[in-house]
């Protein structure tokens, strides 16, 4: 109970709900990884078969198990979200940190660079880059990581600057402490927790963008993923038949739930860890 209470203290009720949803999705994804190779690819039923024994969600236009595609898709979406979030957080921490403690010219250059990146519409940039560079999993991860870092980098730079002006750091600096030591010894305590909401929110956006790309048919339409399933829903005119219930709704709901779970966690963690929000809430 103590652990739960501690978690509740950290996340609050919404955050806990988010964590529960995410845990469930991760569980499904893990189950998906345990399925034999070819799950979701094999033709096991008749095309357009409705749900029945052995086919909980029916079959798609090639007679492939839609439930398996949903499960395998969970793995694709979550691993993409996770990888993009790791990469983005690292980039944002390095760039944001450098902009925060680096010399003025470096800070200015980085910040103006970020400003330019922020003007560009992320989704459109992603679609264009994927069209030119290809839709392989690794390439999509790389593109998303390179597109999504500017906002978190800005947030982290602000955090670094705030931390830098704390009294005890100023004192330490006056006594001649080197910057890197200050950052590791004192700054990390203040900035580290901020990486959690950055991570969670990036994962959320990555999953959503990737599903969008696949839905538009610009991803890899031959690999099972939630967005891909929705793409075929659209191409096959499923919305015009009763099959939307078992074909379109599950992946749509899965995307919504996953993003909702991540959003709840992100908001909860941020509220408790972001110094600005914390002070605003307690005053």
């Amino acid at each position: 109970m103590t652990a739960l209470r501690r978690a509740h203290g950290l996340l609050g009720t919404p955050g806990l709900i988010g964590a529960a949803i995410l845990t469930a999705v991760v569980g499904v994804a893990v189950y998906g990884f345990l399925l034999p190779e070819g799950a979701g690819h094999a033709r096991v039923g008749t095309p357009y078969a409705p749900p029945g024994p052995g086919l909980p969600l029916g079959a798609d236009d090639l007679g492939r198990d839609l439930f398996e595609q949903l499960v395998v898709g969970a793995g694709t979406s979550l691993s993409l979200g996770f990888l993009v979030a790791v990469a983005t957080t690292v980039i944002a921490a390095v760039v944001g940190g450098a902009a925060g403690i680096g010399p003025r010219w470096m800070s200015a250059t980085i910040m103006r660079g970020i400003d330019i990146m922020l003007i560009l519409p992320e989704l459109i940039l992603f679609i264009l880059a994927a069209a030119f560079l290809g839709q392989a999993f690794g390439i999509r991860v790389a593109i998303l990581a390179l597109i999504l870092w500017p906002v978190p980098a800005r947030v982290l730079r602000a955090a670094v600057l705030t931390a830098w002006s704390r009294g005890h750091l100023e004192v330490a600096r006056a006594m001649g402490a080197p910057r890197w030591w200050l950052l590791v010894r004192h700054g990390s305590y203040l900035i580290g927790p901020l990486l959690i909401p950055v991570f969670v929110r990036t994962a959320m956006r990555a999953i959503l963008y990737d599903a969008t790309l696949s839905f538009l048919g610009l991803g890899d339409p031959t690999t099972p993923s939630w967005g891909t399933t929705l793409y075929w829903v659209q191409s096959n005119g499923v919305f015009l038949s009763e099959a939307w219930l078992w074909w379109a709704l599950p992946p749509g709901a899965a995307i919504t739930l996953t993003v909702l779970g991540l959003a709840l966690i992100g908001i909860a963690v941020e509220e408790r860890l972001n110094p600005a929000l914390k002070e605003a809430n307690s005053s």
Partner: protein
Amino acid sequence: MYRRTPRSIAAAGLLALTLAACGGNTAPVQNQGAPGQKTAGTAASVTISISSDESTLTPFTNQTGYPGDNLVNLIFDSLVTVQGDGIKPLLAKEVQTTDNKVYTLPLRSGVTWHDGKPFTAEDVLFSVDYYREHMEGDSAIDVRPIEKVSAEGDTVTMTLKAPDPEFPRRLLADMAMLPKHLWESVTKVKEAGTDKAVGTGPFKLTTYDPSRGYTLTANAAYAMGKPKVQTVKVVVIPEEATQFAALRTGEVHMSTRLVPPQQLQSFKQQPNIGIVEGTEFASTLLAFNTGRAPFDKAEVRRALAKAIDVNDLVKTVLLGQGTPGNPGFIHAKSPIKADELPPLFDPEGAKRDLDALGAAPGADGIRVLSGKPMSYELLVQSSSTDRLRAAELIRDMLKNVGVAVKITSLDSDSLDAKVWPDYDVAQGRNYDMSMWGWSAPTMLSSGMIAQLVASDHKDGPLNVVGFKNDAVDAVVKTLTSAPTMEERSEAAKQLQKLLAEQVPFLTLYYRNGTYAFRKDTYDGWAWQDGAAALNKFSLVDMAL
């Protein structure tokens, strides 16, 4: 939208549309809705949807064989046209020849260009010379067989280098006449603007906006018939699903895309929607890059082809709405008589053949041929749902025999850039395998088929697989130069047999020709083999 095609025979296609009464190949329009629905034989305005921009709609600038050529043929006329199975005179009053070598073509009088200037024999002479000088782009018309062209009054005489019984169908029906007074100043044909889209045809191009589409207006002075529709609006809607949604709502009155098999039933049940059906000659292929190892070996290509069950593709991907591909490429109903060749599918044979080539399975089950794992990339057009699905099934089928396939889906422009850069086969190609297809006109004359496999770039402008084989080249020569139809038919049979043996590409299937339209707005759509429903006969009361 599928693959560009030689403009060649597209014109021919036009032809025939003609009323169900004439011509063995024309099929009546089938009205599938409930009886008593309002239908319309004429209309003030009809909106049709196409999938991509077709540039300025001159014979040199349209971007696709279908529906690009079909639109150009509403604006331009050729000397003759194909109707049903036969040839009908159009700008020429008749076609006279005694030896299939010298063709005498008296021209119709009283024909004017859209700008009011009269159409004369001068324009015909100019057009032939112009095509000769501008044999560029994928839609180039090859007028090299014409040795000499001359005019006496209103009669044009064309003398060929060698007798060619298919000349009217293959060339005359395909060659849009150009107005000399407008085109003699054009040096870069690819840049010809809408001001050059002036023909003698039943419709005038009145507006063009690359982002919105075209407006074609009936030519009241049309000499060969009376347009039944006053205004044809052409809108560009790239996505298949959006096009058919627009058709359902009545925003669009005819879609130039084939109805997806899974939507056919629901269209047939919807009141006010009609379906026009006919034999579709457009083909879907699996192209091998025969210039790249190991696809340079016929044994390898044949073994892969044996692993692919084309019947299953038709049954599963097309829900039965199609015909399995003939190993010899030719559609059974094509005017070039198809040879009934046995299907290639034989997965056990494929395994034996691969074993015989020394390609033993490696640790992961993938065979290793000459030290390299048999793992290849298959390109597919991301906008084509049937090809995507077919590619997935092909991947599974090849995996069964120990060959790995990685599918790469690309938008069609990027794919073209790899398979057919600049629509010029002389520029080479960069792919292993690709989903491909040719539009219907390739199926209409034996000369066209030769273009798919002839190794010479001028004779084989559609040889996107880079195929080179002496035996095939020899047959192609006979096919295109034999003086009689009998000899050509015989050569066509030989060529099909060679194609089935050599498998430069595997013919997967021909989709059924099924197009949907709003019959409450206009129901005059008529089928013409090779041109489907978008043709002169659908929109004009032709008086030939």
